[in-house]
């Protein structure tokens, strides 16, 4: 049964909000129950931005994550520090290791260091780092199909972003493939 609680965090501009929205939208396309909840307010301007996404087979009550995230996607160092404790025991954390210089300290969660920024740059644009991480997340959890994310991309960003679709599709697949070669890291 699917009951995913994903928290995506990073700097404003890294696409954490879009990452969450694409996941929620893809869930909706697959007729799952979804919510997306952003952090809002002055925090958005320059600081850590984050959003919580619920994808579930049953109706979603609270859209808020209270230290019960099944997965945290941390796109920078401050997010890693701030949200490590948000992962539920047994949950996973995906770390953009291109922008972090430490990893998790907890032993009851599974962490993956993914050089998302470097991988996205290899795909053609570092802006797609969020898609690398989303791809990795989907390979691990199979919450929704990648094709649903692609469909969601078209719906969310519309015609204007059509030319960006190949890049994002490429990054999504790359993230999905690369995670198979990455071992989870052990805490220090």
């Amino acid at each position, binding site marked *: 049964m699917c009951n995913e609680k994903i928290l995506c965090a990073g700097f404003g501009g890294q696409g954490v909000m879009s990452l969450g*929205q694409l996941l*929620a*939208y893809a869930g*909706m396309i697959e007729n799952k*129950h*979804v*919510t*997306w*909840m*952003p952090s*809002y*307010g002055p925090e958005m301007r320059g600081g850590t931005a984050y959003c919580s996404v619920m994808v579930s087979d049953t109706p*979603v*009550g*609270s*859209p*808020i994550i*209270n230290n019960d995230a099944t997965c945290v996607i941390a796109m920078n160092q401050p997010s890693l520090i701030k949200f490590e404790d948000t992962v539920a025991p047994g949950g996973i954390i995906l770390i953009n290791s291109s922008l972090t210089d430490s990893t998790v300290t907890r032993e009851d969660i599974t962490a993956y260091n993914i050089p998302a920024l470097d991988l996205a740059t290899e795909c053609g644009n570092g802006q797609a780092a969020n898609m690398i991480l989303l791809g990795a997340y989907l390979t691990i959890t199979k919450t929704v199909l990648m094709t649903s994310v692609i469909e969601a991309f078209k719906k*969310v960003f519309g015609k204007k972003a059509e030319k960006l679709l190949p890049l994002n599709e490429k990054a999504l697949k790359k993230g999905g493939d690369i995670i198979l070669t990455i071992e989870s890291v052990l805490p220090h």
Partner: protein
Amino acid sequence: MAKMLMKGNEALALAAIRGGCTHYFGYPITPQNEITEYLAREMPKAGRVFLQAESEIAAINMVVGASAAGGRVMTSSSSPGIALMQEGISGLAAAELPCVIVNVQRGGPGIGGIQPSQADYYQMTRGGGNGDYSILALAPATVQESAEMIRDAFQLADKYRSPVFIASDGMLGQMMEPVEFGDTQPTLMAEKPWAVVGHGGKRKPNTVKTLALDPLVLEEMNLARQKKYAQMIATEIRYENFQVDTAEIVLCAYGSTSRIVKNAIDLLGQEKIAAGLIRPQTLWPFPDAPFQNLSKKCRRVLCVEMSCGQMIDDVRLAVNGRLPVDFFGRTGGIIPAPEEIVGQVKLLLGRK
């Protein structure tokens, strides 16, 4: 129309356009800006009027003018902005002018914060402005319900010639959820023979006013409005009962908080504690009946709010001393966690 993933605020705005809103007046304030921005973008495309006012005071008075002139009018704001609007809201109620007022609540008092809150319960259900009046207040708990309640709000406003509140909050306004609008056509606006449109030389001038210097006349006007309110109480109360019949404790929560409470009820169920929820969908008029018809199994009632305890007054009035009524709440913009509510329930029931 296909299912869409929308923010609560945007769904409110789109639903307003689909509900036939002809005029919107508003002033920026967090966390409701998506409504204002969406309507700034979309109202002109739909041939409707959007105008940014210089203040909430001006916005609500523009609502007065546009409603008096026969428009189907809406404004939106958040807690301190609604406080500024109270002069106009009292006037709208007194002049019996239909309109929809969205309150995306944030933490107070004063300027307070911008995170979700339900501390405007008194402001919306106890007047807030001067004088004897009441305003229908609809409280959605999902993005879908936000859209549906806006549509209903315009109809109710016309039906009763009254302002109607939508009691949303920062969480419900900011979160995205799937929403479907269906293909329903906007309801036709009621005939408004009382509107100020120019008499055309065909009738005596219409006057939209509230001034009544003769106390006997004013009392008569107030009593006539009370009759209208009695009709609202008789016909417009809405609520949801969730696992109430088997519950040994019944929780009461509305809007965003009711979602958290449902999670808590699930968690309690896993521990074999039967809890239920009465979710008022109208804050005014308040649903007394479900509290008067509680089963014998129910031992106590717990009111949960994002406030220091406001709706609990109505819960106590409805329970009327038959059962103990307790309160749990977080305030200042904190959303309670399901686990906190579970803890409170166990404490009250003497369970570990």
